[in-house]
């Protein structure tokens, strides 16, 4: 019986005008998005490769000339554009993806200003997630708003219920059919996009990417199910078709516009952080205190004691103290940034659209998941680099073996073969780590769907079909 209802509903939908219109729009956007992605991604890749090779050249030059200089040099390293950004770019162009570090300290991250044209108003990229969350999410509500109230208005509901079908089966059938139809609308677009990407050869397809696509599709089905349940609920709560539509629109506006767009405001109020200005002031104060002590000690030295052998250990001691003071403050600040951003993520979790975005971001291992992992890896890499350097330095009899983060003259000044220098390699998050990142959004999405469907179920059983 259930399958009969589903088939009938699907049949009804497939013939409907709204499905055709949505399908055309979705196909158009998938096609356009893929073509634009290929063009943009290739350009991004080229410019990244250029930047990276300049970076490597500079690194090589320094390392082969003077290893001490190599260690003290503060430089920045950018993360590469992701291959699977066509699924979701996770707004990485607006996220910090550049790290500042030297051999002694990873000082921070920022958004490279040259990542995008700042004269142009910022925009969301036309990725799969964008199309699904905005267009398909909207379409699901459109397919849905008249599911019950519409049938009631044209009188078919009373007839249907008069058959020996339980109301639960009827509702489930209607619900499942909407999900199926929404996925049917989506699939041609995805296939088209995949064909374009495959033909262009701009993206290398491997098993990881295929797995990501498969998991993304499951996530999409979940998102569609959630939106459909909400639409169903609004269709049952309201007795009139028009009101049901308005409620659906309000739900959509709330989750697409209101919640994500007021996130910054509420986050600042609920999860305040110290201002960067005050952090910088604290750092310079802490450094000043160390500097003052250093100067006092150095000036107190007798002229006869002013040999480099005596001065360098003192400078190193204070320099390390200063660095430690800065590191403590900076690390706390950087952690507070992560905390605040995670807080904002929890705030926008009211919106299924935001949840779906977070879920997909975790599936491709981009955005916050990627930033957090790379940040930890970068810190790890820096400590490894320092250890390695100390080993090399120990073998140099001419070095004083005194490490000063900002002055290379008391360390080895010999060059090394660049190939032996450890390099930072970005490691993609494993699926376990991605699941960890997706946990909350996955749970909430399932929760919302269940609640909305259970509510509609109860209300439909008691529904007055007249």
């Amino acid at each position, binding site marked *: 019986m259930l399958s009969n209802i589903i088939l009938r509903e699907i049949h009804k939908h497939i013939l409907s*005008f709204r499905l055709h219109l949505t399908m055309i*729009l979705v196909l158009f956007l998938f096609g356009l998005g893929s*073509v634009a992605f290929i*063009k943009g991604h290739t350009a991004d890749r080229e410019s990244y490769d250029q930047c990276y090779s300049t970076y490597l050249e500079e690194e090589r030059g320094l390392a082969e000339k003077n290893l001490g200089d190599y260690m003290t040099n503060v430089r920045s390293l950018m993360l590469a554009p992701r291959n699977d950004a066509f699924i979701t770019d996770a707004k990485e162009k607006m996220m910090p993806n550049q790290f500042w570090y030297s051999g002694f300290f990873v000082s921070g991250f920022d958004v490279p200003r*040259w990542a995008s044209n700042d004269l142009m108003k910022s925009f969301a990229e036309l990725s799969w997630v964008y199309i699904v969350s905005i267009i398909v999410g*909207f379409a699901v509500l459109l397919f849905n708003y008249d599911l019950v109230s519409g049938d009631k208005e044209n009188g078919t509901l009373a007839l249907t219920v008069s058959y020996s079908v339980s109301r639960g089966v009827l509702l489930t059938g209607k619900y499942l059919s909407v999900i199926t139809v929404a996925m049917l609308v989506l699939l041609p677009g995805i296939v088209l996009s995949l064909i374009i990407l495959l033909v262009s050869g701009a993206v290398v397809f491997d098993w990881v990417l295929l797995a990501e696509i498969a998991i993304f599709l499951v996530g999409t089905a979940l998102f569609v199910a959630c939106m459909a349940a909400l639409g169903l609920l609004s269709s049952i709560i309201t007795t009139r078709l028009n009101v049901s539509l*308005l409620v659906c629109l309000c739900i959509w506006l709330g989750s697409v516009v*209101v919640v994500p767009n007021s996130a*910054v405001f509420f986050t600042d109020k609920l999860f305040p952080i110290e201002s960067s200005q005050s952090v910088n002031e604290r750092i310079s104060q802490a450094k000043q205190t160390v500097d003052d002590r250093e100067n006092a000690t150095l000036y107190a030295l007798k*002229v006869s004691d002013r040999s480099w052998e005596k001065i360098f250990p003192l400078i190193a001691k204070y320099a390390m103290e200063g660095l430690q003071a800065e590191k403590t403050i900076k690390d706390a600040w950087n952690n507070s940034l992560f905390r605040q951003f995670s807080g904002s993520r929890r705030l926008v979790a009211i919106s299924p659209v935001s949840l779906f975005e977070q879920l997909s971001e975790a599936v491709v291992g981009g955005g916050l998941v990627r930033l957090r992992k790379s940040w930890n890896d970068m810190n790890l890499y820096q400590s490894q680099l320092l250890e390695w350097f100390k080993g090399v330095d120990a073998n140099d009899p001419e070095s004083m073996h005194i490490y000063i983060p900002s002055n290379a003259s008391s360390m080895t000044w010999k060059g090394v073969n660049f190939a032996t220098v450890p390099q930072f390699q970005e490691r993609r998050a494993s699926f376990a780590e991605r699941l960890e990142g997706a946990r909350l959004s996955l749970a909430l999405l399932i929760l919302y769907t269940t609640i909305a469907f259970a509510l509609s179920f109860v209300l439909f059983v008691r529904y007055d079909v007249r």
Partner: protein
Amino acid sequence: MILSIALKEFYTNLVSARFVIGFLLCLLLIPLTLVVNINDYKSKVTAYETQKKEAAEKLKIRVWSYLQPRIVRPPESLSILSRGVSYQLGNYVDLTFTAKPFKASGQTGTSDNPMMGTYFSVDFCTILAIVLSLLALLFTYDACSGEREQGTLKMLLSNSIPRSVVLLGKVLGACLTLLPIILFCYLLCALAILISPDVAFSADEWLRIGLVLLASIFFFATFAFLGLFVSSMFRHSAASIIVCLLAWVFFLFVTPNVSGYVADSLLETPSEQALAVNTNKFTSEKWKEAEKFRGEQPRGAFDWQYSRPTAGGAVETSGATPVFLEWYRQGNKVVYTHMIESAEGRWLLEKEFLDRQDRQRLLAERLSMVSPAQVFQLLSSSLCRTDVESYKRFMESTRRYREELIQYLRNGNLFDSYKFFTAVDPNVMMTTDEYYNYRTGGRIKTEAEFEQWLKDNPGKSWNSIYTRDRPSVDRASLSLLDLSDVPRYKGVPGGVALSLQDSLVELAILVCVSVMLFYLSFIAFLRYDVR
């Protein structure tokens, strides 16, 4: 007759659920947006105050080479209505001799947390555009198809009234319903501005708000006519609502992103990082060239503070021998002339980059003009002085001001004055011999004697002979320059007329599209099959 039809429409609308929900939506969203934007504006003002203080601090100078003021652009209070690009671009410029102002610096975005840049914020005009267009469509989508389904249209037309009158009446009815909502939104906005202690608007700004209101009426009309047109094209209201809503999503949510994304992918802009590397290399090469013009340092010229000009050309020394100061003074004119000329060369590189970025932006804007909502957005940001043109005008004014300052220095022959790089009196400075005498406490009397000592004591260095630190003048005790007759920065030119001129095209498009849609719906309604 028109009036009675309009009134009938008005009353039906007034009691309908969509009016109540639309009104509630405005009541909820508009204050929220206003609070968020006033809050953001407040934080911009705080940042501006700090920067202004820093700028004033920066102008407490002792030498003319430091006449490199920071120009801070005050935050635009109208950004509460329309943010435009004002939150993406910096707000101050540091003038230098060696480069023309290229881009404004300063914190962009509204949060100290760079990750929060991933959230967009909407302003009053965006919310208004979203809600107004939705309401306009919701009130008109069933004007014909809905009445046809109910059968009332047939009855209405069986009376002796021409169809055009019926249509006009319907339009008027929708206007009567929605105009109060629009006015209510603006009233809320005005109220928020008046109540908020942090925002004060001048008459000019109120006039601009009035113009934005006018634009939003045209914008609303466009969507109302679109709804009417769709309604008279379809026989069923269920079909017309779907078309209307999909069009709404397409115009409001898809076009802005698609146009940006497509323009970004189609027109490549070179990386700004590569440009920065190139321009910095260019300037440092020019510095090397320029320093050669000074010629060989004469004997006895010694600068014990090792002062070097910054990349921007600011230099100050308060510890050098009279010979050095004279030699440096003589070289300055030609060095700085060369550097100021080379700034033009650097600017050529930067201008090309900016032009390419601007072309990309223009392409995105033109593409987005498919959507009336984007036309309205562009129009309002230009009226609110938060568009790219206003930013470009600000940058141009800083470039002009830089020229004025350089001209001022030239007219006063300040480039080849001592005051250009030192605030001390050259006549009281130590000579080289006096310097050695001072630092060794009299053990070594002259420079020649020191060179002899170095030869006699191989392996020893300066460290084992000096007893006193370098002679220094307390810079704080030196007098500051009097800047009273230095030309002042005059600010950005701009009046309503200029903004109107910028936005004329958008306004014309909005009017034309609404007239065209009205005409189309008129024709479609005349031919409408009422059965």
